[in-house]
């Protein structure tokens, strides 16, 4: 087993506080594999992605653990080396394509920036690569799109541009942070299909952050369920959907509506389940302080 990204025992706290926001997180993504990271809002899904990319908000500090990228611990590197390592091997597909693109710059420049500034490519090579990628993400007329501004594109087109930008430098790892949450279902399906094809073709390891278990069941092979910054279940997707193990995962699955099964009663996560998983988190915290 050769995990490209391995997070070991990662704990983070809010600066000035003593409560952990990430609780001894263990998580691995192998090369060529997609791992889903699910949980409710505030569970810390995006925070894990940001920790890997080194873009945590300044109020959060990591107090323990390792983030290994290809066997090298990012957290033990000097700042400059860490940033270069992350910049060359990892990339992000963000949630909201409109805020992620600079409204006053042309699409082409926004894809080539990274190639030119970080990887030192020539402008001509970078432009050629950008064209090739826009074609790969099935954008009609890539020449015209290169010269367009973000507002001239539809939501689905913008998300395609961001996927192209993420794959531009041949990253080994991509963090996809709710990449289809802002899209319509039909567009979402096209974009998910595109992400999976690109990921498989390039053999990229992918951490796929989402709150939608339906999406996880379609694009991921493994998943981690997060509650209050703690991984409560880490399973292969096929096993998880056949039989989730943790009471919280079961409750989450039961609360997800399915149009094919409308009469299954939609149960909000039971208070007893919340109480028991909260107790589990507290117990983990007590143990952690004693170490």
């Amino acid at each position, binding site marked *: 087993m050769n995990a490209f990204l391995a997070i070991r025992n990662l704990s983070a706290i809010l600066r000035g506080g003593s409560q952990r926001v990430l609780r001894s997180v263990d998580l691995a993504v192998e090369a060529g594999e997609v791992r889903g990271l699910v949980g409710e809002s505030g569970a810390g899904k995006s925070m894990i992605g940001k920790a890997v990319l080194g873009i945590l908000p300044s109020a959060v500090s990591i107090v323990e653990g390792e983030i290994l990228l290809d066997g090298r611990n990012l957290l033990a590197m000097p700042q400059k080396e860490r940033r270069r390592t992350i910049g060359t091997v990892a990339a992000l597909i963000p949630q909201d394509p409109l805020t992620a693109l600079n409204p006053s710059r042309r699409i082409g420049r926004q894809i080539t920036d990274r190639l030119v500034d970080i990887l030192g490519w020539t402008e001509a090579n970078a432009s050629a690569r950008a064209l090739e990628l826009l074609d790969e993400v099935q954008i009609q007329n890539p020449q015209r799109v290169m010269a367009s501004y973000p507002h001239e594109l539809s939501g689905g087109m913008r998300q395609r541009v961001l996927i192209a930008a993420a794959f531009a430098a041949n990253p080994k790892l991509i963090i996809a942070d709710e990449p289809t949450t802002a899209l319509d279902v*039909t567009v979402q399906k096209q974009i998910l299909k595109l992400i999976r094809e690109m990921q498989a073709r390039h053999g990229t390891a992918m951490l796929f952050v989402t709150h939608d278990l339906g999406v996880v069941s379609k694009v991921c092979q493994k998943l981690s369920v997060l509650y209050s910054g703690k991984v409560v279940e880490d399973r292969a997707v096929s096993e998880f*959907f056949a039989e989730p193990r943790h009471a919280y995962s079961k409750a989450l699955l039961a609360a997800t509506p399915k149009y094919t099964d409308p009469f299954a009663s939609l149960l909000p996560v039971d208070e007893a389940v919340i109480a028991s998983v909260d107790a589990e988190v507290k117990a983990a915290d007590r143990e952690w302080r004693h170490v």
Partner: protein
Amino acid sequence: MSEDEPLVSVRGLEVALPDLTRKPLFGKAPPIKILDRLDFDIGRGSILGIVGQSGSGKSTLGRTMLRLIEPTGGTIRFAGQDISHLGEAALRPFRRQAQMIFQDPMSSLNPRHRVSTIITGPLRLNGFDRVKERAAEALDHVGLPRSFLSRYPHELSGGQRQRVGIARAIAMRPQFILADEIVSGLDVSSQAQVLNLLEKLVRELDLTLAFISHDLSVIRRLCSHVMVLYRGRIVEHGPVETVFDRPQAAYTRELLDAIPLPDPNQANWLA
């Protein structure tokens, strides 16, 4: 007015706006049809789901039914009365009968007001008596403790805020409520709670509900009827069982097929 007459009856409804992207340098912009000749009824006590992709006219339709937008053609009858072109003063009784719940409870609840003021405000404006008592009863209905009356919106969770939005809408005891994407910002667990609550309220308070959503699983669960909009036109409309089990329009089938069910064995979904 008979009991089985529909509460809302829409005929030939059209909304057109000037298309500014095609406005000539001088002169008027040509009109663009946002809603194009819609005909439908909403029966008393029914829950109509309205779906469609972004830009299909769902929200415009909702706002027109509430007469926040004046139609450019056709008629809207509410409880037998034609409200299509009534002026603000004449609309007042209707305004009390038709309420709205908004998508984002954070931006639709005034952050500087306590829950009590948020719920009693519209009651006072409409000349209700016992406003405090009515606000407290509304909170009972949505399952929030009365102590929440003294809280501010930022002190509440997303699901609780959405319940306050619902309480504000039902406090007036309306006949009709429009809910525009009210669960799309919520986690599945809070979403399940809000859906169960709406179901209960429709029964207990004799409400008629129009529920705009892009989530067909939610619509199948909650609604009695569904209307599929595509580019401002109705492509399919009927009882949910019929539309989901035997969709007629190709676009409806495409929408259904695009839903990722939480099941890794859903056949060839990404193929």
